[in-house]
């Protein structure tokens, strides 16, 4: 328990495992770049299957991120601002998809929205068929991405505290006005990073999608599913598409980082 702090503010020996960890994350990315078939890169990316998959991935990830915002912001507000006793249990259950293997999520969704599922039969009567549709992909992505948004926003809300909200309320602002003019602007950075995390998680969703939505070009075969299928016949093509997903992820995180620091 000695305290030989370096100028970094952390014990120097921490650097070794930290560097090892960074290498462990970065080296596989280098490996993907090294194995990318640059000669065929353009042709691989412009193939109809790749474009369908990329376009579908972007569309569904955007839709599920919007759904996450609509459902997740109120959830985070309730979790952070109310003092109901059983809320701790509710929070743990609602955040379960965070730690659940996605394939388990897919099975759970199947038995909920599937044809013979809890809600599926009612929906079938109403003429709504979810299974094997793009909507199923969005549901699967929302299911796994929602906790990411809720967790980061709830953390931001707790950090921001209720001081300004209380002041606004004593000055006569109605709860909705306080939420719109005080709370949300205060936690905007947390909201942005939560949204970005949710989008990235939705973009990478694989297990729940393949279990619940199936795999059909242009309808349910998102980029991760296309990569997995491409590996069957064309390992190089799979690597090229993987790189696309890496680049998109880097772009998303980069854009979010800039927007956060600008605030």
């Amino acid at each position, binding site marked *: 328990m000695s305290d030989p702090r370096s100028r970094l503010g952390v014990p120097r*020996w921490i650097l070794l495992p930290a560097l090892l960890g960074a290498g462990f994350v970065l080296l596989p990315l280098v490996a993907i770049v090294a194995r990318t078939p640059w000669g065929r890169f353009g042709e691989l990316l412009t193939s109809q299957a790749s474009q369908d998959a990329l376009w579908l991935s972007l569309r569904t990830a955007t839709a599920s991120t919007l759904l996450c915002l609509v459902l997740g912001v109120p959830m985070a507000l309730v979790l952070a601002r109310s003092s109901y006793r059983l809320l701790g249990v509710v929070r743990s259950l609602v955040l379960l998809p965070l730690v659940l293997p996605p394939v388990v999520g897919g099975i759970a969704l199947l038995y909920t929205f*599937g044809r013979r599922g809890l809600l599926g039969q009612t929906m079938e009567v109403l003429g709504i068929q979810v299974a*094997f549709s793009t909507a199923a992909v969005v549901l699967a992505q929302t299911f796994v991405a929602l906790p990411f948004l809720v967790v980061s926003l709830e953390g931001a809300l707790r950090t921001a505290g209720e001081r300004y909200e209380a002041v606004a309320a004593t000055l006569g602002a109605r709860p909705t006005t306080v939420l719109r003019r005080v709370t949300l602007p205060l936690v905007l950075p947390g909201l942005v990073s939560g949204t970005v995390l949710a989008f990235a998680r939705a973009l990478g969703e694989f297990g729940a999608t393949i*279990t619940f939505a*199936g*795999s059909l070009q242009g309808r349910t075969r998102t980029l991760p599913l296309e990569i997995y299928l491409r590996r*069957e016949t064309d390992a190089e093509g799979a690597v090229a598409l993987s790189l696309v997903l890496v680049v998109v992820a880097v772009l998303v995180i980069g854009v979010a980082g800039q927007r956060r620091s600008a605030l």
Partner: protein
Amino acid sequence: MRRTAAALVAVTALLLTGCSGAADDPGDVLTVYAASSLTAPFTELGGQFEAEHPGVTVRFSFAGSSDLVAQLQEGAPADVFASADQATMDKLTADDLAASAPVPFATNTLEIVVPADNPAGIRSLADLESTEVRLVVCAPEVPCGAAAQRLAERAGVTLTPVSEEQKVTDVLAKVSSGEADAGLVYVTDVRAAGDAVRGIEVPEAGSVVNVYPIAPVTTAVDPSLAQEFVDLVVSDAGQRVLSRAGFGPPDATSGDSG
């Protein structure tokens, strides 16, 4: 803090060595890479092989044939490889990874699979053409999907599946859960799936026969042991086990199974 970190490292090291310690006994372990559809009969044959070779443990890796070949090409350590089709085995021989010429040991044909209550009332391949029927098949990139495509061509039907799955088991799961009305899978898969599904024989299936080849791999730790496993699979005893699982004999030209 330092003590905690040291303890963490020690525990991690222990876990890792614990995992590989059991696996790295050279010579006494025979590793067989086999197509998923072979799971039941090969597990049984593995038991027989261990009984005949005291001290030898047979380990299996069951997965899609193409996945397995990709792993072998990346240097995965295996002694024997059994593929669900010739095209996938050709990838192994093309990379000089087969220790001897692959031997055909079984055949498999396609069948329509429906949920046990057959909600869409499917009776033939032609019934699958209706867009009302939610049909699930394998993707053309994998052997069962390629076979389904050939079958549709031979039979002159146009299939419009709602999903093209990557594995036979995914097709089966979607049919047995009632999510899909029908699927195209191998006869052996229907048999292995039990009561949740029903198989419907397809007369045209006899023209699309998948031949399963097996070969020892060049990286085999003990080549003679690998060859002995191949011999067991093609022997009368091996053929009896395979036939019970629904596989046809390797020289079958008609689709009759069992």
